[in-house]
C-alpha cells in the first residue's frame, strides 16, 4: 500500500484514539505530545547537526514561562503568545550557539549543562519572584481561541494533536531540505562541507534556533496542559530524560524520537504500580533497550524491515 494510505490510517487512529481511553490516559498522551516536540528539537540538534546538549530543560522552562507571562502580564491571547514564546526561546538558543562555535562535543556538553543549571537557579531568585513566582511557580492559563477555552482533557488532546502534527511536518521538511542535509554534511565531514560552500557558522546557528524553537514550544505546550509551571520541573533530570528519548528512539531519526518520547512518557506510569521497584526497572529498561537495540527502537525496526521481505512488500521503500 502506498504511504498516503498508511498515513491516513494513522491519522484516523490518532483522532479516534481518545474515545477508548480514560481521561487521565488522554492527558498523558497530550503530555507525550509536548515531549515529542522536545525530543525532535534535540534530535535535529544532536542527531542531525551533531551538537550534544544536556541543557534542553532550560529551553522548556523559558518557553513555558514566556507563554504564560505573555498571556497573564501582557494580556496577549493564546494564539499570539504561544508561537511568540517559541520564537523568543529560539533567540535564547543563540546563547549556546556562541560556545558551540569553538567547542568540541564533550566541552559543549558541559557548557549546555551549565546553561541548564544557570536557568534553573536564576528563575527562583527573589529579585523577580513577583513576576516568576519563585520556587512555587505560577499558574498558567488554559489555551483559548476566540471565546473557546480548551479545558477538558479531550479538547486539550486535539489541540495538542494539531500543534504536534503541524510542527512534525515542518521538522520533517527541515530535516529533508538543504538545511537538514547541510547539518549532516557539517556533522560528518566539516571540511568537505565547507569546501562545498556550506557556511558552518550559519548552519550551527540555524540548528540552535530550530532546536530551541521546538523545545520552547514544547515547554509552552506542557505548561498550558499542566496549568502550572515551577522551576523544580526543569532540572538536569528533565534534560537527561529528553536526551534518553532521542537515544532510545534512535539518534538521527525523527520517527524514532516520536516513539522514544511516547515510550518514556508512559514508562513511569506503567511502572508506578511497581513502587519500590520503579527506579530499578526504569534503569534496567534503559540498559536493556541499548543492549538489544543499539541503534534505538527505530534502528531495530529498520533491521526487521530489511530482514523480512514480507515487511518490504507491505511497506514499499520510501514509505
Amino acid at each position, binding site marked *: 500500500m502506498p504511504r498516503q494510505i498508511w498515513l491516513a490510517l494513522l491519522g484516523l487512529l490518532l483522532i479516534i484514539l481518545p474515545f477508548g481511553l480514560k481521561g487521565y490516559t488522554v492527558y498523558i498522551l497530550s503530555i507525550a505530545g509536548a515531549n515529542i516536540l522536545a525530543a525532535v528539537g534535540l534530535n535535529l540538534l544532536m542527531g542531525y547537526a551533531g551538537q550534544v546538549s544536556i541543557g534542553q530543560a532550560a529551553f522548556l522552562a523559558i518557553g513555558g514561562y514566556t507563554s504564560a507571562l505573555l498571556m497573564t502580564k501582557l494580556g496577549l491571547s493564546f494564539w499570539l503568545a504561544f508561537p511568540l514564546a517559541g520564537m523568543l526561546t529560539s533567540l535564547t538558543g543563540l546563547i549556546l550557539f556562541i560556545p558551540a562555535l569553538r567547542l568540541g562535543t564533550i566541552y559543549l556538553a558541559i557548557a549546555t549543562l551549565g546553561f541548564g543549571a544557570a536557568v534553573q537557579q536564576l528563575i527562583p531568585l527573589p529579585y523577580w519572584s513577583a513576576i516568576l513566582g519563585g520556587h512555587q511557580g505560577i499558574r498558567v492559563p488554559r489555551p483559548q481561541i476566540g471565546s473557546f477555552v480548551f479545558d477538558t482533557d479531550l479538547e486539550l488532546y486535539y489541540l495538542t494533536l494539531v500543534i504536534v502534527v503541524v510542527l512534525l511536518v515542518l521538522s520533517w521538511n527541515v530535516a529533508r531540505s538543504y538545511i537538514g542535509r547541510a547539518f549532516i554534511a557539517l556533522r560528518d565531514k566539516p571540511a568537505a562541507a565547507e569546501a562545498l560552500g556550506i557556511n558552518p557558522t550559519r548552519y550551527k546557528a540555524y540548528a540552535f534556533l530550530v532546536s530551541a524553537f521546538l523545545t520552547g514550544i514544547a515547554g509552552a505546550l506542557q505548561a498550558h496542559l499542566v496549568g502550572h509551571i515551577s522551576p523544580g520541573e526543569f532540572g538536569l533530570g528533565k534534560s537527561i530524560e529528553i536526551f534518553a528519548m532521542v537515544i532510545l528512539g534512535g539518534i538521527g531519526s525523527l520517527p524514532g524520537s516520536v516513539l522514544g518520547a511516547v515510550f518514556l512518557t508512559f514508562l513511569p506510569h506503567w511502572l508506578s504500580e511497581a513502587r519500590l521497584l520503579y527506579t530499578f526497572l526504569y*534503569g534496567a529498561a534503559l540498559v536493556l533497550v541499548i543492549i538489544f537495540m*543499539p541503534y534505538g527502537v527505530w534502528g531495530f525496526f529498520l533491521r526487521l524491515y530489511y530482514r523480512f521481505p514480507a515487511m518490504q512488500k507491505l511497506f514499499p521503500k520510501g514509505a
Partner: protein
Amino acid sequence: MLEQYIVLGLVQGSLYALMALGMVLIFKTTDIVNFGQADMTMFSAYVGFTLTVGLGWPFWAALPVVILFGFLLGVAVERLALRPAKEAPVVSLLIVTLGVALMLNALASWIWGFDPKSLPYAISGPPLVLGNIIITRHDLVVFGTTIVLSLGFFALLKFTKVGTAMRAAAQNKLGAQLLGIPVSRIAMMSWGLGVALGAVAGVLIAPLVFLDLTVMVFVMLKGFAAAVLGGFTSLPGAIVGGLLVGLFESLLIAVPFELINQLKETLVFVLIIVLLAVRPQGLLGEPIHRRV
C-alpha cells in the same frame, strides 16, 4: 581569612580532582563519559558506612575494602552492561551508564533507606592551627590521600606494563589491538580503577556532608566540570582542574555579596565556559587538530 578559604577550597578541590581523575581515565580508554560516576561513588560510600558505622571497623581498615568494592563494581558494570552494548554509538552508552546509575540508586534505597547517614572522620582529634589557618585532621587525610593516589596512579601508568597498555589503548585502539594488547580487558581495568577512585572520593566526602542518595550528583558535576576544565583527555589536567574548581567555589563563598553566594553553582560553570572560549581544549588538553 583568605588563607582559610584557600585551604578549604583546595581540600574540596582535591575531592573533585579524584572524581575527575576517575572520569577522565574511563573516558580516555573507552570514549565513554560515565554519568553513573555519582551513583557508583554514592554506593561505595554507603558500603563504607556499613563497614565503619555498622560493623565498627576503623577507617584505615574500611578504606581498602571500599577501594576493592569500587574496583569490582566498575569491572562488573563494564562486563555486564557496557560490553554487551558495545555495538551502540558512544552517545547511547551514556544512557547505559545512566541506567546503571538508576539501578544502583534503587538498590541503595532498599538497603540503606532514604534517611541521610553520617560517616565518621578518617582521623578524629582536635584541628591543627597553623598561624591563622585552622585545618582538621580529616582535611589532611583528604589532601594526603589525593597526593598519594594521584602519584601512585601516574606511576602505574608510566612504569607498569598495564599502564603502558592503557596509554596505548587510549591513543589508538586499533593499533593497540594489532600489537596484541587486550583492549577490552584494558577497558575493564580502566572502569575498575576509575570507579575505585570515585569510591575513595566518596568515603572521604561523606564525613563532610550528610550521605544520601543524591548528594554525590553535585560532586560528580563538579568533577565533570573539573575534568573538562583540565582538558578531558589529560590526567594531570583533571587534578589541576579539580583544585581550581574547588578554589574558585571557596573564594566565591568568601565574597560578602549575597547574590554571588546564591549563584555559586552557576558561576563555576560560567568561569569554565569563559575559560573554554579562550582555550577550547581545556587547560592541559591536547590541542584539537582539524584533519581534512
